[in-house]
């Protein structure tokens, strides 16, 4: 069964964008063998757009989480607790890491294979 990973990236190579600054997320589909392909560039309203934060981001966070609800993992360079909370409500794991996408996906796949049965992180 394939699953999806959303990545906040500026160049499609490295995870380098803050969750709140992302205006789009690169959606990857990963198959049972860990092979992945880019299937979509999903547009969102940046959570920390235009310098405004928490007040507006409240319902905006939820909107972004709702639009990402088909993915299992979101990768970004940095994120805050509001983002994590909003995504967790949809069962999505938010991971902060600065790393090339090609290195990150195999690690996630290995983790998922080992702990798929009984982990919600």
């Amino acid at each position: 069964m394939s699953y999806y990973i959303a990545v906040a990236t500026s160049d499609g190579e490295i995870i380098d964008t803050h969750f709140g600054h992302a205006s789009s997320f690169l959606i990857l589909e990963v198959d049972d063998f860990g092979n992945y392909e880019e299937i979509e560039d999903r547009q969102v309203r940046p959570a920390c757009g235009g310098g405004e934060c928490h007040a507006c981001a409240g319902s905006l966070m939820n909107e972004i989480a709702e639009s990402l609800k088909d993915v299992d993992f979101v990768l970004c360079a940095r994120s805050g607790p509001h983002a994590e909370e909003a995504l967790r409500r949809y069962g999505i794991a938010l991971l902060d890491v600065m790393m090339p996408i090609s290195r990150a996906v195999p690690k996630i796949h290995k983790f998922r294979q080992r702990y798929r049965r009984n982990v919600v992180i």
Partner: protein
Amino acid sequence: MAECIEQSRVACALGGIYTALAIDGVLPVTHTGPGCLAQASDILGRVNGGQAPVPFEESVVPCTDFCNTDVVFGGGEHLRTVIEKSIEYYDAKLIIAVDGCTAEIVGDDIEEVAESFEGSRIPVISAKLPGFVGNNLFGHSQILKSIVNQYLEPTGEVNPLQVNVFGIVPFYDTFWQGTLERLEELLKAIGLEPNIIYGHGHGIENVKKIPSAGFNLVLSPWIDLDIAKLLEQKFKTPFLQFDNVPIGPTETTKFIRTLVEYAGLDQVKAESYIKKSEDRYYYYISRHQAFVYACKYIPKDFYFIGSAAAAVSVTRFMVNDVGSVPLRIYITDNVPKERQEDVRKSLYDVELEDKDYEVIFTEDGGLAADDLKKEHEDRSVVFGSNWDLLTARSIGSAFVPVCAPYGQTLIGSKNYFGYEGGVALFSDYYAEIATNPQVAFIG
């Protein structure tokens, strides 16, 4: 093992970092979850005489806060950064990188990270302390093993009078600090040069001296025997085991005579020290005879729930010097199976004809409490930890705390070591019996 236990009297393996923190100049860096550091601080510190190695140690000790990202992607790099920054910001003489359950499960290699700091300003060693393998005594052993294997160098000389002291576990043995100070005085008085690594005024310089000892002294029924054997293997240092921290005149005199014989010390000097100390002990005891006589219906027996080391010390003193008899002894600190026979032998090695008391090894303190509630002598005394205060109250017994968690009080330099310790425990014991309304009838 499908049971669950209550009233835990030990911390998880990570509690071993308190051994590291007790050595001046050693800084543990923990590769664990964010809350892990706080779990041992209660049983070993706050509720154990209000002790702490440094104030607010849970906030001072660096930790990688192992979370989701590290679980998925591995935390090795994160640990490397934290160690680098620790070397920059902390004024330590030795850094021990330790890991806990999570890092062991996901397979982070902290040895490799520690080894990559070869040649840095502060040496870095590593120790594995996964909580699912053992309790804080296992952690204590791991820390000492890492220090011996990764830090100690042969010094090229042996001082036949130098004796390293092992067997006392800092913080877990509540009276460790006061005991080590008094022990150091006693060993100096009979002509030895004690080398103690824990506590005030000692530290990493004494650790470096460990290989030059004439012999190692293991003051416990089973703890640190593995370290002594390791030191014998590595540095050819022989070791002498004396199976408890002596309390009172009988045991302390036996201790001094054992040392004199083993190390070939001045017998005349030692015997004069013994005579002086015993005279002084009996002088202090004799001043209280009238008061003790007036405590009608003095309890003749006691129960013990706690660590093996405290059990042997207290049982020897109570039987040999006070004249009380143990009814049941519960050992709650997970003595390994192969050492249980030795502990049992030590507990039955007392001056008593009918030794019909039971020795039960269980990590479940609740079991001991239930046992006592079901069947107990009226008006006895319970020796144990803070958990047993309520048990003692519910069975109408007096209570004297002697092991971890000691209770919410300030321990200061209080200790029950040697001749002076015998006077202190004697006083505390009779004070408790005289004032505890459940057992006392004075007049």
